[in-house]
């Protein structure tokens, strides 16, 4: 085993890859994998949040409901997408799409890519925690197959708010954590500079989650990371999604829901 410092450095490299500005974002995957994507807008309550997008799209013979966190590429788009950090409206739009997917029996494909829900006064006033919690229940109970794929960053409750399902897939260089390393370092070490140690301690890489039995499958990326070849990354993601959906679609829905319940029930069971 190598020493702690080099493990921490290797983990931090994964964090930086997961956040690489040239990395493909949700819309890059959506357009490469699905046909006919029709984006639905608005939560029908307050507004439209561009940090969470979604709508029906074609995948082979079926229609799926896509729900995704979207980061921006240009400065203007980053601002428009709020750096992929959703407000309550984003989660409530997702809830609307979950309900609709259930009504039309569209499987859900969720793409997670956020450092977390937006920490803002307005988000608190409009009940960001309430919106996320409601989605956890809706996803646990939705009577359709749900596959989640973490594209880059899976940050905290903000990721989980669209991330509960039957299968958790992770891109090879993606991360998923209870808190971003900077936040963890600031809380536990009271020093944001300890983020590298925090990243290692949190066990947040795709390989870590697979080892802990939390992630089902790691989707391979092109050498050096998905930013080097969008097509190759999307092909691998598409193949994994098709395979997982086919397996889940063969399961009777009551069994599917019981399996989903047990999937979370066993985590931390004594």
């Amino acid at each position, binding site marked *: 085993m190598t020493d702690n410092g080099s493990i921490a450095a290797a983990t931090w490299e994964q964090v930086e890859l997961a956040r690489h500005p040239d990395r493909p974002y949700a819309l890059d995957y959506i357009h490469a994998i699905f046909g006919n994507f029709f984006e639905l807008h608005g939560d029908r309550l307050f507004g439209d949040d561009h940090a969470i997008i979604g709508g029906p799209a074609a995948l082979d013979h079926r229609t799926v409901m896509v729900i995704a966190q979207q980061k921006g590429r240009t400065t203007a788009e980053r601002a428009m997408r709020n750096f992929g950090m959703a407000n309550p409206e984003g989660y409530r739009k997702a809830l609307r799409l979950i309900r609709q997917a259930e009504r039309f029996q569209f499987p859900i494909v969720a793409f997670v890519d956020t450092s977390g*829900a937006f920490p803002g*006064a307005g*988000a608190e006033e409009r009940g960001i925690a309430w919106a996320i919690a409601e989605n*956890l*229940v809706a996803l646990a109970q939705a009577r359709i197959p749900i596959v989640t794929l973490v594209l880059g960053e899976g940050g905290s409750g903000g990721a*989980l708010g669209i991330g509960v399902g039957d299968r958790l897939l992770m891109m090879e260089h993606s991360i998923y954590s209870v808190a971003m390393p900077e936040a963890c370092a600031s809380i*536990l070490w009271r020093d944001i500079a300890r983020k590298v140690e925090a990243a290692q301690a949190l066990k947040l890489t795709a390989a870590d989650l697979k080892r802990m039995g939390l992630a089902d499958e790691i989707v391979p990326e092109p050498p050096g990371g998905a930013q080097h070849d969008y097509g190759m990354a999307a092909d691998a993601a598409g193949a994994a999604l098709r395979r997982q959906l086919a397996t889940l679609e063969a399961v009777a829905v009551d069994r599917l829901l019981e399996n989903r319940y047990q999937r979370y029930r066993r985590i931390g069971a004594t």
Partner: protein
Amino acid sequence: MFRPKTRYVALPSPRAGVGEEIDRLKCPKCDTSLEPARLTTALGVCYRCGYHFRLRAPERIAMLVEPGSFHEEDQQITATDALGFKDSQPYSKRIEQSRASTGVNEAVTWGEATLAGHPLVIVCLDFAFMGGSMGAATGEKITNGIERALHNRVPLLIISASGGARMQEGMLSLMQMAKTAAALGRLGAAGVPYISLLTDPTMGGVTASFASLADVILAEPGAMIGFAGARVIQQATYETLPEGFQTAEFLWQHGMIDLVVPRPELPAVLRQLLDLYIKNGVAKDFELQPRANASAPTPAVRG
């Protein structure tokens, strides 16, 4: 961050010695020097300004349920260091210290009890144990409590006091949000009422899972309740936060909770709710209705 030592108050309870023994303590809000005996009689509410001191789980439960009716479950369940986590000190050592200093094995205590003549399941978080944070064992105990309420068809009362998910257990902590929420989904589908009481503080992944998923949400006056902390919000947005931001009263104004209840009035409010919801909510012969029947996959044809 928090100053637990000055904010807890020891109330008479069957488990003496659990609370902090403080000869004379100052109210953090009005700075008055308070007499412990008088403060205890006032249920840990400052008799000058109404500030609600934090309570330990055993005292809180003893204050609410009928004497002798509480039967604790899962007392032996305690946190484990699954990740081998180490910050300034190993997590395993932190667990040991927390157990020693609090006298409990986890940040939550639960069991069956009777309140105003109604059997119920009561789950109470304890901020003194690692900031009431939710790790795998915490989530397990909470979920066991929810499942017991479902099994017995008795109402559920969860009292929250937590900084959120427990960092030291990483993703295992985060997934407890999904676990507790899924269990509450089943409880709700079965028509078993759930009352959530939010106390100071209730934040992060706890607010964003079981604490906010109740049929009725109550909160204690002045309790800090939210998702992101004020400091994080200010660092991220440079916003000037409004007066009383994230207090129970603020959340009530924004429609997030049903009622702010001063501590002395809690028993009466809970009695009223249990009387109302149990008569209509949990019939003796109530059958579990899976949502399947309600939302069978009939393709909707519209317009």
